């Protein structure tokens, strides 16, 4: 029994505790909500807003209250407050008779009064004017009732138009269906901009809107509210004043953060604009100054660059640069390339005949780079050529040039030179290597041998240097490759060198190609190796392939023809023979034959202007991938390349028929060149067969 009593007791305590805990956690307060803009109202977004709401929300957060709004009319709200259906009513106008039923807070939320509103463009002179004028009012409104009573005493009787809301009052004033309207001043302040109405000087019946609770209930709530309100009113930046500002300055007014207030914004904008303007002026000035400085620099640079470009042009003109260089000599084919590291460089090459059968080939590298090296190079090259014509043997040539340079060379600039003399009849090569790296002998299958004998000192340092020479022998289709150290020492991004070994490996892949193709292959290999890195040093390559005169007949034929069209059969035989030796496709043979027939018949029929016998010489030769035919005659100067076909849009039968054959020939061959030399018409025709 005792145990049971105890457990009941415990249960009771638990219930109480939980109730206390619940009430401590969240005291629910039901607040009456009647539309009293801007004190408390439901906005268009159906949220409860207003001055009282802001204050209540603030205080509820501090007190841990759970505020719930219960909407109703003002009359409903007062009744509910009386019966206890709601706990609190904000914004009740304090009056003596109400104090019987309700307890008011000591602190006023806000003062309100009645205000007479007129249309914004109406003029107001005197209240007396309102006699028998229409004035819109809300019937139950305390301000209206007061107003009517007062006016009545002065026997001023306007016609009061009863409407059911303050909004309707203001809209009638705006539409001028009434002369004036009565609304509370807070409502008017909030909405006057929306309705474009304005206050008249008439205001009356001030009231203090306070929080109210039923008498004898919830006194603690009113006390708390009073305490907080008092505090809030003491602080000019509190939520109370912010809310008041917000809700009494009109519906369109939005409270902006400090930095967005118009004056501030204007100030900031002006400041920023000022900064921009000043900055702009400074910047423009700077840009102008810099531009001028840059212009001067660029002009100077351009001048230097154009001078360097001219220098480079002159330098390259010193070197034999037209290939094929000696097309009438079938004993050799030669090609060379020089790529300077700077605009002008110290590398050079040369080749020339010492006599009818001796070809001199030279490659050299002057120490240093740029303009000084280029000048020295030009001098050396000229001196070598001059000496070679007289002295013939490489050792004598270089010894002579060395003496000349070394005698007057205070800067001690030196030149490395490889010089060879090739006997075109025998293929015998005599060479001297003066401080230059050993050059390459290339066998017919691309195998390479270093020409390492006859290594002598570089030219220009001591006039007492001795030079000697060595010999080598080139057989049919053997070759030479001359190069400067810019080739073997070309570097890639990782500072690795191309090396002589890579050069020899590359050459090994170029068996049976022309010197030009060999040089191009090496250059492309080096470019692939160096990648984007620019040249560190001049890079020069000279390749030569030798053809023994005893073996040239295979791909080289000369026939002498009479000026008789029947000689065509000999021409066809010769073309067919040489074409077979390199397996020309039949279509090439056809095109070449037809072109030859057109040109040859032209010479036979029109070339001499007489009926005498004449000789016409035809050379046929294979050069690389091309079949070259050269026709020579001693007839009337005639350049067939100048012949034009008649207008092509004309029907065939109306054409100038003379041009037809030559047009055919020009189109069938890949290239045609005409020159008049020593009383001869020389026509060179080229057709690629691969």
């Amino acid at each position, binding site marked *: 029994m005792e145990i049971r009593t105890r457990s009941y007791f415990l249960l009771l305590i638990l219930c109480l505790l939980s109730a206390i805990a619940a009430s401590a956690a969240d005291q629910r307060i039901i607040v009456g909500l009647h539309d009293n803009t801007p004190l408390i109202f439901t906005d268009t977004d159906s949220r409860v807003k207003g001055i009282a709401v802001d204050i209540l929300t603030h205080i509820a957060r501090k007190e841990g209250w759970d505020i719930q709004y219960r909407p109703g009319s003002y009359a409903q709200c007062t009744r509910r407050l009386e019966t206890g259906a709601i706990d609190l009513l904000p914004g009740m106008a304090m009056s003596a008779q109400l104090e019987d039923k309700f307890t008011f807070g000591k602190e006023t939320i806000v003062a309100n009064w009645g205000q007479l509103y007129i249309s914004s463009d109406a003029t107001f002179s005197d209240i007396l004017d309102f006699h028998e004028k229409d004035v819109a009012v809300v019937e139950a409104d305390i301000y209206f009732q007061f107003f009517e009573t007062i006016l009545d005493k002065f026997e001023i009787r306007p016609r009061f138009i009863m409407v059911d809301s303050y909004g309707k009052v203001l809209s009638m004033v705006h539409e001028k269906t009434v002369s004036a309207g009565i609304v509370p001043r807070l409502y008017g302040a909030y909405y006057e901009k929306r309705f474009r109405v304005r206050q008249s000087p008439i205001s009356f019946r001030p009231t203090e809107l306070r929080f109210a609770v039923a008498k004898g209930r919830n006194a603690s709530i009113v006390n708390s509210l009073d305490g907080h309100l008092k505090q809030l009113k003491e602080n000019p930046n509190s939520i109370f004043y912010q809310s008041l500002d917000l809700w009494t300055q009109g519906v369109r007014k939005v409270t902006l953060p400090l930095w967005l207030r118009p004056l501030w914004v204007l100030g900031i904008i002006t400041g920023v604009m000022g900064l921009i303007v000043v900055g702009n002026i400074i910047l423009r000035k700077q840009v102008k100054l810099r531009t001028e400085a840059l212009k001067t620099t660029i002009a100077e640079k351009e001048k230097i660059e154009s001078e360097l470009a001219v220098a480079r042009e002159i330098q390259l003109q010193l070197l034999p640069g037209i290939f094929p260089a000696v097309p009438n000599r079938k004993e050799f084919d030669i090609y060379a390339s020089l790529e300077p590291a700077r605009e002008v460089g110290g590398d050079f090459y040369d080749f020339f005949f010492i006599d009818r059968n001796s070809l001199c080939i030279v490659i050299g590298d002057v120490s240093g780079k740029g303009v000084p090296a280029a000048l020295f190079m030009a001098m050396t090259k000229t001196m070598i050529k001059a000496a070679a014509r007289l002295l013939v043997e490489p050792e004598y040539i270089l010894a002579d040039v060395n003496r000349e340079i070394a005698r007057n060379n205070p800067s001690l600039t030196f030149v490395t030179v490889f010089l060879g003399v090739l006997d075109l009849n025998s293929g015998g090569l005599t060479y001297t290597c003066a401080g230059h790296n050993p050059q390459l002998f290339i066998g017919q299958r691309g195998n390479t041998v270093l020409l390492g004998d006859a290594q002598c000192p570089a030219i220009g340092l001591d006039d007492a240097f001795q030079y000697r020479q060595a010999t080598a022998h080139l057989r049919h289709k053997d070759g030479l490759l001359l190069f400067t150290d810019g080739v073997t020492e070309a570097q890639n991004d990782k500072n690795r060198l191309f090396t002589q070994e890579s050069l020899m490996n590359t050459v090994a892949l170029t068996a049976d190609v022309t010197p030009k193709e060999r040089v191009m292959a090496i250059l492309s290999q080096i470019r692939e190796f160096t990648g984007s890195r620019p040249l560190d040093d001049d890079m020069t390559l000279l390749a030569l392939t030798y053809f023994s005169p005893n073996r040239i007949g295979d791909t080289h034929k000369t026939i002498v023809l009479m000026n008789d*069209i029947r000689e065509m059969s000999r021409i066809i035989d010769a073309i067919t023979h040489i074409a077979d030796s390199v397996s020309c496709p039949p279509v090439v043979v056809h095109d070449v034959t037809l072109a030859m*027939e057109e040109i040859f018949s032209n010479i036979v029929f029109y070339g001499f202007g007489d009926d005498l016998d004449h000789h016409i010489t035809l050379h046929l030769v294979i050069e690389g991938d091309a079949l070259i035919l050269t026709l020579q005659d001693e007839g009337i100067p005639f350049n067939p390349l100048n012949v034009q076909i008649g207008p092509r849009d004309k*029907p065939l039968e109306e*054409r100038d028929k003379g041009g*037809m054959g030559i*047009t055919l020939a020009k189109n069938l061959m890949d290239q045609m060149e005409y020159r008049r030399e020593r009383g001869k018409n020389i026509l060179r025709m080229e057709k690629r067969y691969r």
Partner: protein
Amino acid sequence: MNLTVKSKQKMDGVYMLSPSGRLDTNTFPILEDRVDVVLQEKPHTLVFDMEMLDYISSMGVRVIAKAQKTMKAYNGRVILLNLQPQIQKVFDIIKALPSQQVFSTMEELDDYLDRMQRQFTG
């Protein structure tokens, strides 16, 4: 290398010449003579069948051009048939061959001649 020429009358007013071999500076008179003989008949259409022709030079082209010129005087037509690639190439370079004058097969030619025939008779 030589040139032979066959000729036949295909139908009324239509003659066909078939040169075979090389038509060049040496051989063109052979064809030229045959053309002259045929043209005496005043054919309204002259067909050159080039199927067996291996080679043509500008002198050969001239023979055909000359025939065309003669026939044009009385509204006759020259037609080319079966051009080998190397022959076609020569005409292409000279760019003087209206496409309606070239037929690639005998059937094509026969169709054309049939249509012409109907036009004349009908």
